[in-house]
Every structure is written in structure tokens, then in C-alpha cells.
């Protein structure tokens, strides 16, 4: 056992740093660092940059155009990308559907869809949740009925993140209403411009349009768009969720948040001294840093074990819980750090090119927003309570 980075790993980090410093546009990193709204083009710019270096599909095996990086390399890459102010990689095609197709797709599906994900010809949306199926995902009701060479889909999906940028959507649909809830579900790929699909925005508590609801009325989907066997979609869904969860620890984002927190706490004053020297605030920061350090190791040893063939089972649930706790705590401390200047709300300040003067310090503007926005992390991807149920069931067998 040696938890220090090897010289090769340090060299890899240096490589990534240099490349990002040279290639990531200042325009884009400033937007990210200021918490400004990212457009579809912003994401595509970042993807194109990664593609040019062969680093876009860093979760995929090499034979499919991935990087073949091990867990430590992935960790380093993510850490450096976030630290440099890169946007996130849009996960729906690259991190979610890609691994699913590699595991469950037919040769035709892999040949057709994987290159289109890599080239950004396709922007995928995730069609899992429904108004009546949140944490209880298996109770989903969107119905797909076989009609010759097609399925006819009727129902509704919701919380469709960045669906308004997507041209395709992967959905869980019910193909056998008589079977046990988990048994009658299938995994279908659809085109967004199919007749009968309608999308409406949902505005989140900050007043932003990030998520949508999607309605399906007699949408005809060719049967070859089925992934995995009919009625076996739950297996596919669970595989995808496990993938979704390990990334959800968000170590790199929390590290970046802690770094900002330390900077801001040195800047902010309390009784004429830096807030960072206030024993109460310093103790909160210290506890956060310790939790984060431990979680980083926990995350690394889990992904390392998974890479050696162990399945990330309950660990991914535990990481989801701790990861979101830490990230939420960081945004909470950031919000507190700026005191009354957490209050001002200037929606226009989050547009590129805004040149106004904020009432308080520059860095204060996005903090309360980020705090409220991050509440979602303990709700999505299987709420933290659902994660506890999963672990408890596994531990107790009750």
C-alpha cells in the first residue's frame, strides 16, 4: 500500500495542467469560475477541445475510443479540469449511455451510436423519472406497446436535465404492465423530433431553466431501438445508476469549493480580522477539509477496487451520501462566509459579458444560488434516503 502519487502520476498531472493552461479558453474558464450560465455552445467547445486530444471519453475502454485511464488518472484529470475552470463533461451520452451500450448494446447499436456520442452529433437526455416515479423509479408508468416493428409510447418523463439541448433521449418504459414492477420495464432510445414528443421547461428555485418535462403521445419507436432484452430494462437501469453514483461523490468539485472557501475566508473580515482566523468558522472549515480528505481516499480505493474487478456495490451508495454531504456543507460555508452579501440577487450578472458592479464582492454573487442549487444533489440519482435503504437491505438482509 502506498497512497502517495507515483512520479509517473505526478508527471501525468503536470501534463494535464500544461495542456489545460494552453488550450482551455480564458473566456470559458471565467464563465465557469463566475458561476455564469453555460450555453450549449460552451459545452460543445469544451467537448471539442477534449476530442482534439482524445480525452473526451475518458470513462470508456480504449477499444471504443476511450482513454484507457485507470482510476487514479481519471481522478487526477477530473481534479485538474475542475481546478482550471473547465465546464463539466455533459454526462448523459458519454458517462451514462455510452457505458450502457458498451455493456448491453448490439453491434449495430454500438457502431451507430457510440461514434455519434464521441463526435457530439448526438446530445442525449435521460428519461428516467416521472411525476409519479421519483425515488420509487420502478413504479414508472410510461407505456410502450408493441405494434409490428414499432413500440408506441405514451406517458411523461420529468427532471430532464438540459433536455432542451438534446436531439435524443433514452427512456425507461413499461412493456409488461402485468409483471412485477421491476420485471416489465424496457430501455428504449428515441429521437427528440419524433412526432408526439413535446418538451416544456421547468424553472428551478433560482429561476433558471436547466430541467424539463417531456410528454409522449403515440410516439412510434422502431423495435431495434431497444437496448438489452425486452422487459429487462431494470438491469440496464441499475447498471447505469451505479455508474452515475460513483461520479456523484464529486470530489474534484468539493476540493475546488474548499479552495474558494479558504480564499474567501481570508478576504472576509470579522471584528477586523480575517474570517479564516475566527475559531468557530475555522473549525467548520477544518472539519469539512478532514471529511473531504477522507472521502477522497474512500472514493479512490473504491474505484481502484472496482477497476480490479470488485463491483462497486454499496460503496457507491455510501459515496453518494458522503459526497453530497460534503459538497452541500462546502456550499453552506461559502454562503455563510460572505455574510449579508449572500443576499443580492442579480440574474443578469450570470450572463456572459455582464460588466456591472455587484453590491458586494464579486465572488459573493453566485454563492447563495449555488447553495440552493446543490440541495438537488441529495435528492437526485436516488435520494440519500434511498441510498441508505439500499445499503441497509444489503447489510441486514431484511
Amino acid at each position: 500500500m502506498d497512497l502517495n502519487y507515483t512520479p509517473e502520476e505526478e508527471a501525468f498531472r503536470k501534463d494535464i495542467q500544461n495542456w489545460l493552461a494552453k488550450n482551455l479558453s480564458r473566456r470559458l474558464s471565467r464563465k465557469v469560475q463566475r458561476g455564469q450560465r453555460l450555453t450549449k455552445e460552451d459545452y460543445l467547445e469544451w467537448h471539442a477541445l477534449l476530442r482534439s486530444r482524445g480525452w473526451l471519453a475518458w470513462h470508456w475502454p480504449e477499444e471504443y475510443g476511450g482513454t484507457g485511464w485507470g482510476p487514479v488518472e481519471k481522478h487526477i484529470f477530473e481534479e485538474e479540469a475542475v481546478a482550471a475552470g473547465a465546464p463539466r463533461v455533459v454526462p448523459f451520452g458519454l458517462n451514462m449511455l455510452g457505458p450502457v451500450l458498451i455493456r448491453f448494446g448490439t453491434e449495430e447499436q454500438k457502431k451507430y451510436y457510440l461514434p455519434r456520442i464521441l463526435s457530439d452529433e448526438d446530445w442525449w437526455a435521460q428519461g428516467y423519472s416521472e411525476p409519479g416515479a421519483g425515488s420509487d423509479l420502478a413504479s414508472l408508468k410510461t407505456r410502450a406497446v408493441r405494434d409490428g416493428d414499432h413500440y408506441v409510447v405514451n406517458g411523461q418523463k420529468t427532471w430532464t436535465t438540459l433536455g432542451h439541448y438534446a436531439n435524443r433521449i433514452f427512456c425507461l418504459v413499461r412493456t409488461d404492465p402485468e409483471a412485477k414492477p421491476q420485471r416489465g420495464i424496457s430501455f428504449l432510445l428515441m429521437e427528440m423530433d419524433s412526432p408526439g414528443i413535446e418538451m416544456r421547461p421547468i424553472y428551478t428555485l433560482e429561476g433558471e431553466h436547466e430541467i424539463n418535462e417531456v410528454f409522449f403521445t403515440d410516439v412510434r419507436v422502431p423495435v431495434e431501438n431497444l437496448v438489452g432484452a425486452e422487459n429487462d430494462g431494470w438491469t440496464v437501469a441499475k447498471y447505469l445508476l451505479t455508474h452515475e453514483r460513483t461520479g456523484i461523490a464529486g470530489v474534484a468539485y468539493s476540493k475546488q469549493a474548499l479552495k474558494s472557501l479558504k480564499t474567501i475566508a481570508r478576504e472576509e473580515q470579522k471584528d477586523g480580522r480575517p474570517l479564516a482566523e475566527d475559531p468557530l468558522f475555522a473549525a467548520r472549515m477544518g472539519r469539512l477539509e478532514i471529511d473531504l480528505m477522507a472521502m477522497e481516499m474512500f472514493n479512490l480505493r473504491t474505484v481502484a477496487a472496482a477497476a480490479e474487478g470488485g463491483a462497486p456495490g454499496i460503496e457507491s451508495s455510501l459515496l453518494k451520501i458522503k459526497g453530497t454531504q460534503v459538497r452541500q456543507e462546502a456550499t453552506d460555508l461559502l454562503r455563510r462566509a460572505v455574510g449579508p452579501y449572500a443576499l443580492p440577487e442579480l440574474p443578469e450578472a450570470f450572463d456572459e459579458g455582464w460588466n456591472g458592479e455587484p453590491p458586494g464582492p464579486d465572488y459573493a454573487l453566485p454563492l447563495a444560488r449555488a447553495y440552493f442549487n446543490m440541495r438537488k444533489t441529495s435528492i437526485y440519482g436516488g435520494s440519500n434516503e434511498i441510498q441508505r435503504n439500499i445499503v441497509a437491505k444489503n447489510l441486514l438482509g431484511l
Partner: protein
Amino acid sequence: MDFNLSEERQMLKETAERFIREQYPIEKRHEFARATFGFSRAMWEEFAELGLVGGLLPPEAGGFGGTGEDIALLFEALGRGLVVEPFLATGILGAWPLVEAGDEAALEEVIGGQRLVALAHGEPNGRYSITHVRTEAREGSNGWEITGTKAAVVNGCAADTLIVSARVSGGPDDEAGLGLFRVDPRQDGVAIRSYATIDGGAAAEVTLGDAVGKPIGTPGEAYAVIERAVGRGVLALAAEALGAMEVAKDLTLDYLRTRVQFGKPIGANQALQHRMVDMMLEIEQLRSAVMLAASTLAAERAVRERNLSAAKHLAGRVGRQVAEEAIQMHGGIGMTWESAVPHYAKRIVMIDHLLGDTDHHLERFMRFSEDAA
């Protein structure tokens, strides 16, 4: 990065775990804890023969381990068995200053189990400070003569040799000016008041009046040696706490599965399930912190001390949660002497009272965090 144990380490771990599981049932442990010195000297000799003391010390000292990893995995096994023999006092705190001084003769007896040593460092009103030393050493007609009081010296009563810290110069809380001295506890100038501890061990107040001591290393320059010995002790305790918590968790899980109330196992209640998961999650966090601290034990000072404090802080914070929840979920049974659970709980919580509690190490973590970054 490499997260796997080497083959030799895996063997050492298994040897220790198996021996403790088979030879150290809790009834025997209670018996040892109630003996005169709070442990069994015969058992200690068996442990030594098995190589568990040597595993804590490096080859140049006659041992075959001594890395952070060795210390962590052995103490985790000791924690699982609630072992009361003086591994911390003799194998870590007492032995490491001897290692640094290159005292091979004494170490041979330590590793063989014939000689018990204890570090007499902490003082009344010093809490967990490493620099708070009021005990003084002066060169007199009999060599170095030491006067002062040492508090809560773990296994101090049984020690064949005391290693006493004393100030030879400097102000009362300076790092500079500390010395370490080997003191024979059977001389007139040493008075020992021994007592049992609530978690099944033994400690002592040691009063020295012109006690004669032989310097270890150069008097005045011992601070770094003390800090490193205490650092290893911190790692050992965090790992021991981890082992004890794993058992407390397993016992509690078992109880949730088998205890029936209202016609179903109590573990069917979500209120208990979620708390159980939180316990498990925090234990995983602690395990990560212990691994990190073990792995950086030989790193530069700021990184080493920061990571040690992170581990000990978490051991205290998580320990309280695990100890209290384990008792609570066992209900009335958890309050009885007969159950193993409260004995684990007592040890876990009392570890927070040794070599710095959760607040002490949070403060220390913050102090080193900037330099380590």
C-alpha cells in the same frame, strides 16, 4: 498509488487476527484487565513470541516492520480484540525513542517481551500539549536528576524502564530545551500511584524527586523525537479505534437482525436502518483517514502531522457516534457488563482521551494544513 497490502503484510495481519480471535476471547480479556497491572505478562510474552512487538519496529532496531502500514494493521487487529497488553506504551511510545537513539540492547529485550517500557510525558494541567513540560532535569552529583510530576502514564506501573521527558532549558511551553531520560522506577526518587482505567487498562501518576536518569539522545533536543513517537501513537490509537468500531458495528448489525420486537426484527425499522448505514459510512471515512495517515507517516512533517491529526480527529468524532449508537441500538443489554458492546464503546470513547482528543486534533490539523498544501 497502490491500495493493496503486500503479501508479507497480509500474512502479518492474518496471523495477528487469527491469534487474537482464537486466544483472546473477551472473558479472558476481562480477566487480564482485572489483574494487578491491568494486563497479562504471560500473554504479552506470547504476543512477543508471535512477533507482534517486532512488527511495530523497524529492521535496524531488530524488528521487521515499523512502517505506518504495519502499525495501522496491527493496531486494528488489537482493537478488534480489545487487547489490553501494553502495545502502545511499550511497542510504540516507549520503544520508538530507543529506536531513534539506536539502543539495540534495550530493544532486543523489548521485542523479546522481557522488558516493558513506558513513556512518562504528559503532565497535570497539560491536557494534550506535547510541549507542556514542567518537569526539570539538572546535572547533579549523580548525573542527571529529574524532578516533577507525570500524569496518566499508560501502563506506567508495570514498566521496567520509564522514559521521562524533562526540561533542561527554555520556557515552560517551548519546543526547544526538552530532554528524554531513561529512569529506573525502582529507585527512591520515583513514586508511582497506579490506577485502573475505565476502559480496562492501567495508568499511573509518576512523581519524581531528584530521580536519576540517563539521557537518551542529546538533552535539549528531544522535542522532535517526542513528536514522532506521539505521532506513531496517534496512528496506533486511530487504527485501534477503527478495529474496535468494526466489531461494535458488526455486533450491532447482528443484534438488529436477531432481536425481535413487535413481531419483527428491530432492524426492519427504517429509523434504525438509516442510522446503522450512517455508522458504517463514517467508519469507512475513518478507515480512509487511517490509511492516508499510515501511508504518509514517513512524509515531511507538515503532511505527516496533518494527516495524523485528521485521522485522530475522525477517530474521536466517529468513535463517539459509533459507541453511543451501538449502546442505544442494543437497548438495555447494551448497558450490561455481560454484553461485549459496552466494553468496545468504553475503549472507543476513551481513545479520544489519549494523545489528543477530537478538538485538539482539529486545531492541530488546521495548524499544519496550510503548510502541507
